[in-house]
């Protein structure tokens, strides 16, 4: 695990970001008639529709059949299936930590060098994506296991331009401005933030993104890396400081819609709705690039909503850090159709197809940028290109028991009034317990 963590290398987003190498060829594959690929993953509506549409392209081209099954308890279910030996052919892991665990028990099939080379060549910052998908197998040998497909940028704040205009607010460009704006909003009787941590089995994770963004804005990236790998303990004062900074928003009843009590009970999918209610229940919502998929129907990007970069301190010389994440496809069975599907995903066509649907970013250099659904996504590029530091979602890199366990629950406890020290101590204790 620590190895993976170390691989959470910085990679400059200028590399991730698009170059104009347009590859408009349609995908064509070998004849796989009669073969079947089963995929399971965490995607439900509307994303399950998109993956099925993409699968349909593959089916048409190869004659194979593809079945996708989504589950909101995917993370438990894939463990059951792999341990029992009846996994699907492909699994879509929402985070690398779980994939690494599954690799460690021999549940994943390594991908071929061809695939690895394609990632190296076609993905911006290809080496980073390869490193993030390379884990030790059950014998301790490093193998390349997964390809990232559908990545997201997390350091974003969403807002309603109309509301900002009505109130005369300016988009902040520094953390100082953001804090001042928050105070101003509150003093004018507006609620600055909507924060919701609810997410069923995964309740608490949105707060871990806050923590990671804050860590990147208050300390050097190397501190972030040490924190993620636990070389720096979780209850280090630097982490406590970050937690209290999050608390200065989330625990202030005037700053957050519904008061601090509502933070953990509100579902993360519901919480941005406050931006669009009448009167507005909140002004800003910090969330990753996928969140528009959960906005009320009929809203238009750039008109009804927009986003700005979650800014950095102007006084701290830490540049403009950006936090990102992504889902990965890993093969859980070794067969021709499955391996072909993995190759297919690295083709530009499936990338472009989803780009057109929205809520989708790809590091694939071959994808035609004009296929993005809106200017909004093109604008993400500005944030990314302007970034000086890129870090992968830290909780996804922590061991599952922490990054998908005690970190989540700890943050819920924190918003419920437990002190930062107690929370951090408990998380560190759980980390010690699995070492």
């Amino acid at each position, binding site marked *: 695990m620590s190895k993976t963590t170390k691989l959470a290398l910085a990679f400059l987003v200028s590399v991730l970001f698009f170059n104009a190498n347009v590859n408009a060829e349609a995908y064509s594959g070998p004849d796989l008639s009669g073969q079947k690929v089963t995929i399971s993953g965490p995607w439900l509506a*509307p994303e399950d529709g998109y993956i099925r549409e993409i699968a349909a392209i593959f089916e048409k081209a190869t004659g194979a059949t593809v079945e996708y099954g989504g*589950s909101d308890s995917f993370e438990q279910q894939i463990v*059951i299936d792999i341990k*029992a030996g*009846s996994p699907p052919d492909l699994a879509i892991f929402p985070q690398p930590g779980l994939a690494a665990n599954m690799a460690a028990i021999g549940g994943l099939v390594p991908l071929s060098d061809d695939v690895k080379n394609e990632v190296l060549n076609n993905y911006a910052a290809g080496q980073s994506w390869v490193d993030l998908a390379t884990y030790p197998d059950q014998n301790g040998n490093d193998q390349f296991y997964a390809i990232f497909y559908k990545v997201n940028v997390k350091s974003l704040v969403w807002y309603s331009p109309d509301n900002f205009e009505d109130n005369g607010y300016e988009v902040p460009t520094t953390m100082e401005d953001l804090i001042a704006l928050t105070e101003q909003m509150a003093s004018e009787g507006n609620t600055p933030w909507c924060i919701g941590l609810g997410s069923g089995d995964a309740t608490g994770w949105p707060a871990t993104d806050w923590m990671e963004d804050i860590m990147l804005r208050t300390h050097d990236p190397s501190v972030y890396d040490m924190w993620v790998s636990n070389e720096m303990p979780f209850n280090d004062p630097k982490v406590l400081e970050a937690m209290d900074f999050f608390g200065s928003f989330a625990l202030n009843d005037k700053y957050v819609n519904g008061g601090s009590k509502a933070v953990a009970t509100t579902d993360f999918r519901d919480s941005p709705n406050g931006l669009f209610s009448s009167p507005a229940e909140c002004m800003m919502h910090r969330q990753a690039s996928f969140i528009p998929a959960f906005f009320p129907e009929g809203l238009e990007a750039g008109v009804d909503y927009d986003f700005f970069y979650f800014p950095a301190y102007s006084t701290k010389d830490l540049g403009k850090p950006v936090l990102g994440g992504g889902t990965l496809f890993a093969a859980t069975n070794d067969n021709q159709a499955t391996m072909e599907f993995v190759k297919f995903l690295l083709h530009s066509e499936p990338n472009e197809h989803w780009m057109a649907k929205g809520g989708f970013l790809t590091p694939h250099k071959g994808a035609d940028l004009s296929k993005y659904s809106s200017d909004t996504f093109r604008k993400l590029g500005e944030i990314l290109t302007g970034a000086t530091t890129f870090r992968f979602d830290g909780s996804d890199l922590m061991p599952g028991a922490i990054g998908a366990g005690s970190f989540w629950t700890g943050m819920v406890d924190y918003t419920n009034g437990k002190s930062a020290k107690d929370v951090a101590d408990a998380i560190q204790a759980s980390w010690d317990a699995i070492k």
Partner: protein
Amino acid sequence: MRKNLLSSIIAQLILLVFVIIWIIPTFGLFVSSFRDKDLLAVSGWWTSLTTTQVNEIHRTLNKDAQIQENNIYMIKANIFDIDKGKKITSFGITSKNINQFLIEEKATLKDGSELTVSENGEYIWKSQIPFKNKKGKRIFITASSPPNFTLENYKEVLFKEGVGQAFLNTLTVAIPSTIIPLIICSFFAYALSWMRFFGRDTLLAVIIASLVVPLQMSLIPLLSIYNDIGALFNVSSKSYPGVWMAHTGFGLASTTFLLRNFIKSLPHEMIEAARVDGATHYDIFTKIILPLSIPAFASIFILQFLWVWNDLLVGLVFLDQVPSEIIITAKLRELLGSRGENWEILTTGAFVSMTVPLAIFFLLQKYFIRGLVAGSVKG
């Protein structure tokens, strides 16, 4: 008799309190399932029975819709896409003051243009100079919304592709998963009650102990066995017979326990009489025990059916999540999607999936009670 009357009234009152407390949550669900999905998340279900006040944001059309009349530029339309009987009482043009103006009142915008909104949602936006706005102007309305019930949610849940099939799938899972354990366990319970064999008491103790084995911990070992068997015969390890057996396994302890209580309570002389009459154990079972156990079967049928019907975990683990096998609870979860907490699907879905067990309960209620009595009342 005065005292009797008083105590009867007190009894009725206490019972009424219980009934009200018990029915409120379900009633709330029932009402909610008929409500407009937009309203579900913003107002309590009890408000749906009265006219309620709602705040909404709408956007006018943009410059492309303007028409020119007598040198005045106008944008005219209705802010409601569908007429749901809402009556606007006031409106506003900024989020800071959402009910600044009454209906038909003239609101003057910064650029001098004027906007009026009628009760029914029609608006006229007039300007001396041509409109240049690319995006429409937001109008904040406060409207009274009459009680508004809809069957939309039910349409969505019932007629959505795959739900009907999921219903059938669930029946395919539930019926054998209820009947097979009933058959197997009734023979087992009979043997435990009336046959003499080595280790009978130990076996009974094991059954009682098995009542508490947590289902979740069995999943991985079982699925491994399934996979081995599947690989051996080169068939899919996830199939209907597999899920039937799984439900049989998980229901075995409780079904046997309850059935044994019942079968044991039958008079032993009757069974001996049958043996003297020349009946084998199989004759006794089919000709005497079976007809007499119908009430017990009915009650255990209901309990097991309820459990299987409402199960999610076993269905998820032991069946492929494909249209031909997905069960209704899993399908509802899929419908729920990740788009917010889709209350309308949750409420309606919960209600739809409740209907079958409830229908079975009311059909078999008479037997159900009789069966339970015999099984538990007699120590």
